[in-house]
């Protein structure tokens, strides 16, 4: 026996999704403004065009390039896991150490760690398993000098697979933690 119901037309909510952008504050010399003037006093504003200075002598190089330069280890952001495993494999320890060092040297830098799982099993239980992965990364970062305020560990469970497909090759790509800096998510 077979019966088909035809559905009615429906209309959808329009949604927009915008990724926040973050820009580095421009470096520059400080431009002093005259303080509050006396009421009724005649003051002449000092006309002085601003100068945007660049300082190459401090240790803090522009943050974006270090984090995105393919030659820099910091441009690598993903840690992969074996099936049903949550510990950081030896091959990823130097990567986590490098990011911990960056967070320690850049106290204003913030990081979001997203834990992911493969598609098998309960979506909600996979949220919890992905959380176990991201918290493992957070724990190691904090042992190496990052602070609680800098790092947030969250889970995307199986919801944002990197690789499509229901096979071990895809699943291995999806058992993963990703480290994202402020402005990148």
């Amino acid at each position, binding site marked *: 026996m077979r019966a088909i119901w035809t559905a009615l037309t429906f209309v959808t909510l329009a949604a927009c999704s915008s990724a926040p952008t973050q820009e580095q504050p421009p470096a520059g010399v400080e431009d002093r403004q005259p303080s509050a003037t006396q009421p009724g006093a005649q003051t002449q504003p000092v006309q002085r065009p601003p100068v945007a200075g660049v300082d190459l002598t401090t240790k803090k190089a522009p943050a974006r390039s270090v984090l995105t330069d393919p030659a820099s280890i910091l441009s690598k952001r993903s840690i992969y896991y074996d099936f049903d495993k949550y510990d950081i494999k030896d091959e990823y320890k130097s990567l986590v150490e490098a990011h911990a060092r960056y967070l320690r040297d850049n106290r204003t830098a913030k990081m979001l760690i997203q834990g992911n799982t493969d598609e098998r099993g309960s979506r909600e*239980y996979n949220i919890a398993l992905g*959380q176990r992965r991201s918290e493992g990364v957070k724990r190691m970062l904090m042992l190496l000098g990052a602070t609680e305020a800098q790092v947030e560990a969250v889970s995307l469970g199986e919801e944002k697979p990197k690789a499509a497909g229901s096979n071990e090759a895809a699943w291995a790509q999806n058992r993963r933690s990703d480290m994202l800096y402020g402005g990148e998510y």
Partner: protein
Amino acid sequence: MVMRFFLALLAVLAFSGAARAQLSIEITGAGGQRLPIAIAPFPGEASLPAPIAAIVRADLERSGLFRGVEVPPMVPQPTEASNVDFAEWRSRLADALVLGSVVQRPDGRFEARFRLYDVVKQAPLGGIAYTLTREQARATAHRIADYIYEKLTGEKGVFSTRIAYVVKRGNRYELQIADADGAGEETALASFEPIISPAWAPDGRRLAYVSFENKKPVVYVHSLLDGKRHVAANFKGSNSAPAWSPDGSKLAVALSRDGGSQLFLLNPDGSGVRRLAQSAGIDTEPVFSPDGQYLYFTSDRGGSPQIYRMPAGGGEAQRVTFEGSYNVSPRISRDGRKLAYIARNNGKFQATLLDLTTRQAQILTDSDRDESPSIAPNGRMILLATVVGGRGILSAVSSDGRVKQRLTMSAGDVREPAWGPFLQ
């Protein structure tokens, strides 16, 4: 004849943009004993946008408990006011008969009347008259089907209830609400980020769910009537797995704000957060027992994910599932007697129903990627998500495993079903 007026409150949602999709239901298995019922076309129903008699028949057949008897064209068309020729209906092998009519009233609205008969006993079983607008034709048909179902089976029908589910098409996610027969769907939320775990408030007017629009799981409460939504839980870390208490006053959620995945209780407006338990492992997927006394949930505290139960105010947990190494996603029937969950058997994830009194567990499906079971409010059917041919579809199966249906979308994956409560 019993006179009762029915005013359907139709949720009107604010929409912009347009899309089109079809959700179709295919019945793939039926019960053994099906009661033959004849439902004659209602004279006058052609002036309504939906055919009342055909929808009533489809509803009853979909339950797996009824078989529609073909009704040939008759002159004059019988109505609820006609004298019934029981011998003729008996010769058509009908055990039950429904006759009705639709007339337009001077104010532009319609009146649909029907009467239900026991053909074998040659006796009327009752009937109702409904006043309706054109837009309420489908809802009225579901109400009539509920009445007939309850009269003939003794249990409440669920044809007037609604279901929620998530459709994924490309990179677009839509949380949709449809009638229990999959018709009349409306989109409550559209997003470019995943939406999971919709949970109906007991009043049937709000949904809690998890949205990833902030690049992490956050729990929202969404009012279907006006489309207003607010954050219920957005703490540092992950916020997920919302479940309503039976009185609608609390939400149980899984939060990682203190590390790990742990159970908390909060008010639906997000206030009054209270930790329910301290566990060394994962605790998630809470669901209240219908009396509000207990929480069933998934935990790996014993080494593998299993279902546990603890007092809703917190306290010692008892293990509920013992067989196998992966039992998750508990849902409890409204009478509190049956527990639906997903069990992994030889690598297959299958919907399972456990009778909490007899401790008998029955695997309900022969599929291998079942998830997110949801029990109909009358306990008769279990709706779940599964994968067939690489596509996400919904599947409904009766609590005895015999009646089976597939709900598919012409394009896209359907998942995360949640069966709404009885209309209040």
